[in-house]
């Protein structure tokens, strides 16, 4: 019994994506990791293949695919064991802001580029002194005639270096209620007053260009406001749901991949007596225990995907999935590394990178502690 009903078209699409990634993406990953950046051409390649923003309607250049297409790409991208080509972030987290809240003009202007990979996007919410707490935001956006002047700094911005378009959250200083002061603004690359800071060194996500962004009297035309003024919070809250779900979906695929590698390693490597180490009882139990949790999560997330796609209210379940699966990723990375033994000490072991990369999943898109707080609130505790 399958919880999700993938059609033949979905299945063929998955095979095509898999093959494309194996040929066009995976061979470059080591280089991107070393260079700490993914070339923009790789984004365009993805776009040309039709693998960016699959859900965008045909009239804006997309294929108008359903949510399962997004799921397929997210899952297959996770199998490339790198983070730099952050298509999940672009396709399913950021671009939806434009599609959901943008004006017809904005959509026409930006969506085709987002689909083709000519426009790489970023979203700038987090600030140095306000992590998961959006109310603590201090960046400002003041109206000055036909223009808006943005001031402030943002940090931990994924795609920060590559981004051609940044959606910036900022507060109207004239509005006292912090929850009604926030609006979203579209800032294009090259706008005077918009500067990128240094790329941040991190535990993992080497190929991902996480950066600080600075806005210093950065003037944008008034029509670059995204959605209703003052509705920034609501928009962020709405879209954070899908962000967290996508994070869980990627995390689930990563867990499955790590276990696959590990089972393979244990079956093909022998102990001193020449017996595959997968025959050792303790290793067998470790693998079974991990497989069990992964399968349980899979049932849960598939059900959640179906519910999300059907538009059901799944705030509680999404928060749960995000925290549990990203914690699971940590446990799986850790236990799998142990099964690799000394080889796990080196970066030649794929689990080493996985461990470093996945560690951020329980932090971003709202820390897992924030997830639990949300679940508690909506459970009426």
């Amino acid at each position: 019994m399958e919880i999700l009903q993938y059609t033949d078209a979905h299945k063929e699409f998955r095979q095509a994506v898999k093959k494309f990634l194996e040929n066009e993406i995976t061979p470059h990953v080591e280089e991107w990791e070393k260079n700490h950046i993914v070339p923009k051409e790789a984004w365009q390649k993805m776009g040309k293949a039709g693998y960016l923003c699959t859900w965008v309607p045909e009239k804006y250049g997309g294929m108008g695919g359903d949510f399962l297409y997004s799921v397929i790409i997210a899952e297959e991208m996770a199998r490339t064991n790198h983070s730099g080509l952050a298509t999940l972030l672009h396709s399913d987290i950021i671009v939806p802001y434009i599609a959901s809240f943008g004006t017809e003009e904005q959509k026409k202007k930006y969506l085709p580029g987002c689909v083709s990979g000519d426009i790489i996007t970023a979203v700038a919410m987090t600030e140095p002194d306000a992590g998961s707490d959006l109310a603590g935001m201090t960046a400002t956006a003041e109206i000055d005639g036909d223009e808006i002047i943005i001031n402030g700094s943002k940090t931990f911005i994924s795609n920060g270096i590559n981004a051609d378009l940044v959606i910036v959250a900022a507060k109207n200083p004239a509005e006292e209620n912090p929850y009604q002061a926030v609006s979203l603004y579209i800032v294009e690359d090259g706008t005077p007053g918009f500067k990128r800071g240094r790329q941040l060194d991190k535990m993992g996500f080497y190929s991902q260009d996480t950066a600080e962004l600075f806005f210093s009297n950065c003037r944008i035309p008034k029509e670059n406001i995204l959605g209703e003024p003052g509705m920034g919070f609501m928009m962020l809250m709405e879209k954070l749901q899908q962000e967290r779900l996508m994070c869980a979906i990627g995390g689930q695929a990563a867990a499955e991949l790590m276990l696959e590698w590990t089972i393979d390693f244990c079956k093909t490597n022998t102990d001193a007596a020449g017996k595959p180490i997968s025959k050792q009882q303790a290793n067998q139990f470790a693998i079974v225990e991990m497989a069990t949790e992964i399968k349980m999560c899979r049932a849960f997330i598939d059900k959640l995907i179906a519910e999300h796609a059907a538009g059901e209210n799944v705030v509680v379940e999404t928060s749960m999935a995000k925290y549990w699966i990203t914690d699971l990723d940590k446990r799986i990375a850790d236990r799998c590394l142990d099964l690799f033994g000394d080889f796990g000490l080196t970066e030649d072991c794929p689990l080493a990178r996985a461990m470093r990369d996945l560690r951020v999943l329980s932090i971003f898109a709202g820390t897992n502690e924030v997830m639990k707080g949300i679940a508690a609130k909506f459970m009426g505790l």
Partner: protein
Amino acid sequence: MDFKLSKSQKEIQKAAWEFARGEFDKEQIIEISKKQEFPKNILKKAGELGFIGIHYPESVDGGGMGLFEYVLLAETFCRKDSTLGTALMFSAYATECVLRFGDKDLKEKFLPPVVDGQLISTGAFTEAGQGYDITQIHTTAAKENDQWVINGKKTLVPFGSMADFYVVLCKTDPAADPPAKGMSLILVEPDRAGVSAGDISEKLGGRLVPFAEITFKNVHVPQSNLIGKEGNGYAQTQQFLTENRIQIAGFAIGIAQGAFDRALDYVKQREQFGKKLAQFQVTRHKLADMASKIEAARYLTYYTAWCFDNKKIDSQLASMAKMTAAKAAMEVTDEAVQLLGGYGYMTEYEVEHFYRDAKHAEIFQGTPAIQKDIIADIIIGKLK
């Protein structure tokens, strides 16, 4: 029992802390770790001040103290910085074999420069595909006139290409049954003909202790380079591993404590949702858990080191201490990363390398599963 640190132990702790505060530079450590570039200048200073070889006798320039004091030092250095602390305390890796089993000549020649921080030593025990059963090695040393001729390949050798000598585990009697009885430890200098070192990939943690693969091709060394008795190599290696696991337990406690310190500082400063993070009950409980794990691992490790110094060389206890302390370190550093949130993931906030170094301590010299195999062997003993 008496848990009071002696005056000299307190002084060692204090001196080590001051040294680390003065010499360990955050920016520099991050920089050299990226390049896996060991800071020989700091090692030299540490050697001059007596921090290297504190557990070696004064006759070879050592501190004349025990493993207990080594653990105090390791803990202190790793608390200040996990990566540099680990590297400094590893710089004399495997020299304990010379100390515990070597003859007078070997000791006089090799121990003082190591203790003084002028030489880096290492041990070459591991071979590819041998798992943790070191009786399965293939490196051989054959007697030829008054020399040993060594052939074979060792992997994951700490400091590999920069070490100034290797303690090499060899088969000297390939026909021995059981094989464990035909093994010996031989000291090899890297400038002998036929020795070549190839660096292997970057490491997940412990990045100032890079690994290399060392190949020995008809390497001739004098017979006097034999460490201890011929045929005793297996037992000697096991004893060294026991000692080294206790040392690693010391690293782990320091790593955990250092990450805890940083997390505590952070949550006392950082505000979210109008409160200090330290005021959230869940943060508070995490800190309490972290601190409790550190304390429990600490006293088990101290006890284990004390036993070693008191001639109770107990591989069961050493494995318990190593496993327990490394587990505490993993859990504490993981929670520290989490408490720092996005900053926890960023290199400049340091805890991310404490986390990686904790994992290094947990895997190096045997994963938890290996430690449990060792512990269970002794607990269960012979079955009727």
